[in-house]
């Protein structure tokens, strides 16, 4: 036999390129690029700096929340409460600042709220064995209701002494004219990608999604990690809420309504598997980008906005269809 055991063991079955081609994320990137190219030629208004600025900024809120959701989905869970948590954190920030406190205290209060909500979800799910779907569905209702209680269901648009600072934080463009939210998104995506690929914590998240029982048997602290991922998800929603408050300059109790579905759609389009064990930070961003490009293009092409849901829903099904086809081929 010409091939020794050591050579077989050392062999890499896949080159970098073949692995890239095999990912759903790669094909979604191609779809986004093709759509952008098409729109640049088909319309005059797509490739303008103003429109691109709008798209990139609109992507960020869904994308940031999707980064947090990616952690949860990799463990095989789901977090339906993110839209409401975003609203609650925005409202806590707004109410605190409106009452005359500084921006630092406002942000600290908002982030503390997010972490408490996340820990509550996580403890119910990990320690008491509640299904994630049910717990976060309950929190979806609770968090939005609390936001209404906190603001007495009014619109808050005056943020006390640090009003301008908050608006600059979310609405400014401090580096090279790139909207601030985009910078936050890129930073958070890099952190997420790093954690998922290079830390023990990230490895354990994938293990839990792949086989929770095995993770437990091999000594992975499954419960603590599950609490942590729901805290991360809520934290991401809270951060997005803070930024969005600064960008909008006003908070209503409608903020983030229905956002959880967009966020889940973005992660799934980007290649995450709702059954757990698969997902990337880059995928979450790309998925959010595809949804936003579809939305933007429909407007520019003069297609009735009522058709939006059909196209976004179609994109979800198409993305997962590609994945199914690949799996069918593999199992043959």
């Amino acid at each position, binding site marked *: 036999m010409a091939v020794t055991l050591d050579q*077989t063991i050392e062999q890499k079955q896949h080159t970098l390129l073949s692995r890239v081609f095999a990912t759903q994320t790669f094909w979604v990137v191609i779809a986004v690029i093709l759509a952008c190219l098409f729109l640049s030629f088909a319309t005059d208004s797509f490739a303008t700096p103003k429109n691109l600025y709008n798209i990139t900024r609109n992507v960020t809120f869904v994308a940031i929340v999707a980064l947090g959701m990616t952690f949860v989905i990799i463990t095989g869970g789901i977090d339906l409460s993110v839209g409401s948590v975003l609203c609650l954190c925005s409202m806590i920030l707004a109410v605190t600042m409106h009452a005359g406190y500084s921006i630092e205290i406002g942000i600290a209060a908002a982030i503390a709220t997010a972490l408490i909500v996340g820990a509550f979800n996580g403890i119910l799910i990990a320690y008491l064995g509640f299904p994630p779907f049910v717990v976060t569905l309950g929190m979806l209702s609770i968090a939005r209701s609390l936001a209404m209680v906190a603001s007495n269901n009014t619109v808050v648009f005056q943020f006390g002494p640090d009003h301008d600072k908050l608006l600059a934080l979310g609405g400014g463009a401090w580096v090279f004219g790139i909207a601030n939210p985009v910078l936050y998104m890129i930073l958070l995506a890099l952190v997420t990608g790093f954690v998922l690929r290079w830390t023990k914590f990230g490895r354990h998240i994938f293990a839990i999604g792949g086989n929770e029982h095995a993770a437990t048997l091999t000594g992975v602290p499954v419960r603590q990690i599950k609490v942590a991922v729901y805290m991360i998800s809520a934290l991401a929603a809270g951060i997005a809420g803070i930024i969005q408050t600064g960008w909008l300059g006003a908070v209503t109790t409608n903020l983030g309504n229905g956002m959880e579905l967009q966020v889940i759609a973005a992660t799934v389009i980007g290649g995450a598997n709702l059954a757990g064990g698969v997902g990337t930070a880059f995928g979450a961003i790309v998925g959010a980008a595809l949804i936003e490009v579809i939305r933007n293009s429909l407007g520019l092409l003069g297609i009735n906005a009522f058709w939006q849901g059909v196209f976004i829903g179609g994109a979800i099904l198409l993305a997962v269809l590609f994945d199914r086809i690949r799996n069918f081929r593999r199992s043959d």
Partner: protein
Amino acid sequence: MDFKIAVSGRSWGERAAAEPQAGKHGEARRLVAVLELTNISKHFGAIQAVNDVSLSIEPGQVVGLMGDNGAGKSTLVKMIAGNFRPSHGTMQMDGKDLILHKPVEARQHGIEIVHQDLALCNNLTAAANVYLGRELRRGVGPFRILDYAAMYKRAGQIFAVLKSETRPRDLVKQMSGGQRQAVAIARTMLSQAKIVLMDEPTAAISVRQVAEVLNLIRHLRDQGISVVLISHRMPDVFDVADRVIVMRRGRKVADKTIASSSPEEVTGLITGAIEQVS
């Protein structure tokens, strides 16, 4: 937690040299039993699952543990693995009392388990599975990142020792039953395991892969590691084990060398046609 990693070829070599032809000279090393159970019993309420069992396991010995469903095999093994505490009796390891509260403690004492379902994550690579829960990292202080290169390399070395054609970078979901067993067994070789408990490793795989798994067990034995093989499959036990222990209704009814027994006798012992042999 600090796990000792003994995966360089050298330390294996030393161990193999220190235990020349272990198992074949079992009689001569009665005194240095790695694990000794004395009058172990376990009851759950009124149910007596294990009743007054004593046995000893010597280094580098493969012991087949046989018995019908409900005979007490699993309960016995779970006590050794730290899942249950015995109601009565004592366990000793290398002559020292062994009291286990949790499975992690068993692992710290060098007792490793290969679970029946192997406890593998299909979405991870072979190396990631081998190191699951005890990942290697590099860096300083809180800035420590996974050391992929070292994990691939060392997992590869273990597979080479096990003579298994398993690639550390491959995903487990693409692997054959034999390769999956190799991954699960490789896990037990990360630390200085003294005893490996294997729960029905050949129950659900093809005939060709059974041979592969039995070879893996022999390679473990050649490292001086004792293997307790829980199995229903008579041919496997008679193929690979040095000794066979038969349990029936919570009691040990036979404990003899493979050479001095026969499949017919063991079958009789399991079913109760033969009451007990000494």
